């Protein structure tokens, strides 16, 4: 490679590396486009670095173990939907769950209850258990 080409490649490499470094630093280390350093800079840097390592290692692991293991998405795609109740279907693949709600098929049931002294109407799928009072209070907070 001629000297001129070598210099051009080096300049481009330096500029691209600079752009990525600036993006990384201004998002993970500095606060609000200013010189203040984030109080959680250490953990933010660790998170970005581990994300980067994962994005490299996970595809590699998949590439080398493609035949022995299948991803959760593939397992889900291969398993069949089970009917939970009218209009609600689900399938499970160990570490992933897929729930399908077919609104046209769903039979809704409405009931009235009191939350924090106020009367509320709760609409649930017919055939399922009503949520607990605590769960309702937390939901309506």
């Amino acid at each position: 490679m001629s000297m001129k080409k070598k210099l051009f490649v080096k300049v481009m490499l330096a500029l691209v590396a600079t752009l990525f470094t600036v993006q990384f630093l201004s998002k993970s280390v500095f606060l609000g486009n200013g010189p203040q350093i984030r109080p959680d800079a250490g953990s933010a840097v660790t998170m970005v670095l581990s994300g980067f390592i994962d994005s490299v290692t996970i595809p590699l692991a998949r590439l080398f173990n493609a035949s022995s293991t299948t991803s959760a998405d593939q397992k889900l795609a291969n398993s069949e939907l089970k009917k939970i109740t009218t209009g609600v279907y689900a399938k499970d693949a160990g570490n992933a769950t897929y729930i399908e709600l077919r609104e046209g098929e769903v039979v809704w049931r409405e009931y009235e209850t009191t939350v924090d002294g106020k009367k509320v109407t709760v609409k649930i799928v017919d055939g399922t258990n009503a949520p607990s009072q605590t769960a309702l209070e937390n939901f309506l907070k």
Partner: protein
Amino acid sequence: MKLGPFYFDTKEVFLVILIAFLGATFYFQWNIPYFDEQKLLLLTVLILLIKGLLPAIHNESFMVFVLLTVFMSLYLELFPLLLFFFIGLGFFKLLRII
């Protein structure tokens, strides 16, 4: 071009004209479309400082870097722009470009 005890090459003459023009934009309060004058002024100071410290052999690489920094001033805020300038210089030194 020889001005008193100083010798300016063509690039430096153009740079001096450019800085005089930038000074005029401040004095007459002209607007430079899309560009922020404050960022350009700060970049000019930094560029002059580094240009003064660098040997003339690195003019071309430095010019490419400066042009890109000026262009990046359209997109980056002041502090990320300063980071870009200094980190870029660091990478140029690291890769032995300058």
